[in-house]
């Protein structure tokens, strides 16, 4: 029989794997990898601030992630190249968060837990947060799937079909911020991008349509979460990085398989 904390960790991991599947695909298709990273890094500032003013951590991270996402999308295309802009914002968020955290007297903040995740310590309340967030995001993506996909392909094509791509991008940004906020506990803010991108990149190799790719990404994510946690339990390795390593293995195997198929 598995210990309770491992069961809770697995349920949390499954929630994050499922929510990360559609979002991870959009991040890959729209080349938003660095954008996701900036949003995740901003979350540290949110954590520090929510500890300072005694706000729930989830709310703080969500607000910081949203703020970062909107700032970056507003500023992009006005002067700085977007990778420069994202580089500035991502590391500014991280640095500011660390500095603000050091000012907090009386609160011992476990930085490692936020940077690399603390999935073995998820509480029942954390599970509620993760799954409510996950279900909300899934419903949102399901509802907006077709318009978001058309907007991703081509903005003019979207307009000509009466879709406003700016609105779809906004919805995607909100969904991404929620995903970041619920995933921090599981993999930590430094590895959220990995969780978004690696399963999607792995599934790309075996997918013929966008929908298959999302399903493939979910499968890779779920198997990675379960296997990674078991591995971590038996070999005493850090759980978040172990999950990422398992999905990396999937990526390597599926990419090699694809290269092999093309070569022959």
């Amino acid at each position: 029989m598995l210990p309770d904390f491992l069961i809770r960790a697995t349920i949390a991991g499954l929630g994050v794997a499922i929510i990360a599947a559609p979002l991870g695909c959009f991040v890959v298709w729209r080349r938003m990898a660095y954008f996701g990273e900036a949003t995740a890094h901003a979350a540290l500032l949110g954590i520090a601030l929510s500890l300072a003013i005694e706000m729930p951590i989830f709310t703080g991270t969500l607000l910081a992630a949203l703020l970062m996402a909107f700032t970056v999308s507003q500023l992009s295309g006005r002067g700085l190249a977007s990778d420069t802009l994202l580089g500035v914002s991502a590391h500014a968020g991280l640095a500011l968060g660390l500095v603000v955290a050091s000012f907090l007297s009386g609160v011992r903040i476990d930085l490692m837990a936020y940077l690399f995740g603390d999935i073995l310590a998820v509480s029942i309340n954390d599970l509620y947060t993760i799954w409510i967030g996950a279900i909300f995001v899934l419903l949102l993506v399901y509802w907006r799937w077709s318009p978001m996909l058309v907007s991703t392909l081509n903005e003019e094509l979207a307009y000509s079909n009466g879709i406003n791509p700016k609105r779809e991008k906004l919805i995607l940004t909100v969904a991404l911020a929620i995903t970041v906020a619920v995933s921090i506990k599981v993999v930590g803010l430094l590895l959220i991008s990995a969780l978004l991108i690696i399963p999607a990149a792995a599934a790309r190799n075996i997918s013929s349509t966008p929908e298959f790719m999302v399903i493939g990404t979910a499968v890779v994510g779920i198997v990675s979460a379960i296997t990674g946690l078991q591995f971590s339990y038996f070999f005493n390795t850090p759980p978040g990085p172990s999950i990422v390593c398992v999905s990396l293995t999937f990526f390597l195997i599926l990419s090699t398989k694809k290269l092999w198929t093309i070569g022959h």
Partner: protein
Amino acid sequence: MQHLFGTVINVTLIATKDLTVKYGQNIVLKNISLEVQAGEIVTIVGPNGSGKTSLVKTIIGALTPDSGSLHIKKNLRIGYVPQRLNIDHTLPMTVQRFLNLTQVLDNQQCLDALDVAGAPGLLNAQMSNLSGGQFQKVLLARALQGEPEILIMDEATQSLDQAGSADFYKQIETVRDKKGCAVLMISHELHVVMSASDKVICLNGHICCSGAPEAVAIMPEYHNLFGTGTDGTLALYRHNHDHRHDEHVHSAEETP
């Protein structure tokens, strides 16, 4: 006014009046007034940077006009063929899925759509593996679904060679005659396009001249814009529209 399928149709699909569009301080379109009627083929020609693409973007709602009026028929069904469509390599997309992007088609409808657009047998191909010409035809096939009232095409033949684009325009005309939809297209390939059009609009930030292709071809404004060097190659083929003449002959002939 057009005679199509024995009935007289005179519905205005798109009408602009003194339309002005700016990018920041730059005026890209100035006082554009034009109309597109149902079933009409309208071609917009103009040099690079003349605002052709901005005009199309304004009509489909991607750009907001700064002044003037833009009237689009209510619930106008637009079949849009973009200038370029880069499907990111990371986004898997079969031709069949692409055709189903904004509407639900069954297998047979997809096959028919590809036949009409002249690209049969591509149903299960990946979009990223298509050649330029095949890709363009699939874009056309998608745009033709859902009974569009107007096809809007932005330099749709950019990736095609001379013969390929002549072929493509013939396809457009066939489609227009079959489906009765209007066509609004942008092109710089005057010689191929013009004869197939009912109306040509010469654009260079403002409308320099417009009218029937034969009339525009001899207007001085047109020659100022494109030079007189094109005279010899102008109008590679002249097309007898069967809705204008009684004969149902499609012929191509050289004109001076």
